[in-house]
């Protein structure tokens, strides 16, 4: 029996807490609460992975895409409530973008998992390379954001 089976009530509680958080965020109109709910779900998933110590979970990309949709739909409902009137074309455009990016992210995640499952001996150099890649990805996003916002 996996250790996580004994902790099932905890995972269910964390999931329920996330749903409650997002519901309260939508009710009171707080986007920050919606973000916290996503963080909580991701933390629960990560904790379950670590406690289990099971081999690779193939459902992780789907969970990631679901998490993005969860967050986007929560924020969208808040924006819809604030906006006085909105053109239908905007709804279609946004839905298309969100779905396309969720699928693209899922594919990217699956690619990352496939790469991770390759039988490569672990080493300090490889870990350092992974760290550098992660830092590079974050730096790239930050640089892009800084450049785009400074152009106005």
């Amino acid at each position, binding site marked *: 029996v996996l250790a996580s089976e004994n902790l099932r009530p905890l995972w269910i509680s964390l999931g329920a807490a996330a749903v409650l958080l997002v519901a309260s965020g939508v009710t009171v109109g707080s*986007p*920050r609460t919606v*973000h916290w709910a*996503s*963080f909580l779900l*991701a933390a629960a*998933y*990560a904790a379950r*992975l*670590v406690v289990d110590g099971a081999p*690779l*979970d193939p459902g*992780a*990309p789907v*969970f*990631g*895409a679901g*998490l*993005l949709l969860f*967050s986007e739909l929560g*924020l969208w409902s808040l924006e819809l409530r*604030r*906006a*006085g*009137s*909105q*053109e239908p*074309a*905007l709804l279609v*455009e*946004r839905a298309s*973008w969100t779905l396309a*990016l*969720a699928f*693209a*992210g*899922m594919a*990217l*995640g*699956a690619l*990352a*998992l496939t*790469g*991770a499952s390759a039988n490569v001996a672990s080493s300090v150099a490889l*870990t350092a390379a*992974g*760290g550098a890649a*992660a830092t590079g*990805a*974050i730096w*790239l*996003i*930050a640089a*892009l*954001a800084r450049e*785009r*916002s*400074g*152009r*106005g």
Partner: protein
Amino acid sequence: MRRAASPRLRAYATFAAVVLLAALATGRPELVAIGAPFIAFLTVGLVVSRTPDVAVHVNVPRTRLLEGEPIPVEVTIACGSDAARVDVELWFPAGVSASGGSRSTRLRLRAGERRTFELGASADRWGTYALVRGRLRAWDPLGLLALDISIEPAGVVRVYPRPERLRALVGPRRTQTLIGSRVARVRGDGVEFADIRPFVAGDRVRRVNWRATARRGSLFVNERHPERNADVILFLDTFEEVRAAGAGTLDLVVRAAASLADGYLSCRDRVGVVGFGGVLHWLEPSLGSRAQYQIADALLQSEIVFSYVWKTVSVIPTRLLPAGCLIIGLSPLLDPRSVGALLDLRARGYDLAVLECSPEPFLAPPASPTEELARRLWRLERAALRSRFQQLGVAVGQWTDDEGITTALTEVIESRRHSRQPAPA
């Protein structure tokens, strides 16, 4: 103008950084997989993001309106080279509300598109309003970066109090020399028959009353009342008011003044305005449509200015109060300075009538028996004050917003029929 990162950008970037570092720390590649959609969202969103070239212009076509009339607000947005998603939010000043409750709209503009739409608003209260402030926020396609453009006031809108059509007006005791619509007490050339008298040299033949002449055997002529105008001064008490739920006695005072000015000016009377309060303002008596606009503009400036200064009627320039004018005091009768000024005017022999704009509807109901008793005593004091005015020959009409001003005016007119005649000024 600077583009700012949205909270979503910050939250997603933080999330991606945390899960990537957690993946490294725990050695679980699944965490990279759950962060991947967020990284894809941010990367694509920032790559496709362009600085929107958007301009906004707000126009208010009608700048002079009456209370309750819709204020059309035209918003024109022009998009330059790139398409943009824009949120337009307008903030109306206090006293102006958006029609339908919607003050914001979200649009998708194509490159080179220019779109004009109308947002309705209405003013609940008379006044001068700077319309309209707002903000235009242009988003990139994924809503990660936003460009804020502030919308400055498009102009000043003057909302005039809506005058009530009056069925009767308080008639002045004396008329002036200009031709008007009022039958003068004196005799002269006019339409209204006054009396007959024996013919004297110089009388015109057309004035001979042939029937009376035949009956009496000597020439008799008709005498008539000429039509003259009157001078009316609207004395606005702006020392103090009672307000509740966005309405107050000053609103009643101004609305009554607008209705009375409209009524008297349509009878070709000269109308002047004296705002007697913390700040004294006035408008000399004049007639015609120009005076109507001047009075309407002067009424918009009426406001309560708190002051400890003890003012009497001596601060009012004498040319504002012509001899024989009718002074109509519009007051909630709350401040002893304005009450004293009205009594002083009467003591100086002016023909005075008071329209009391009652503060009662704006008071909270008494919460305890003690407050109930205090309210009764206060009502008695006010009744005594009204009685004092009436003893001095000043008619007092009580006006609440629930009933038309005509009812209060009728009360004044009836009271003046039986009141003591004022000493000639």
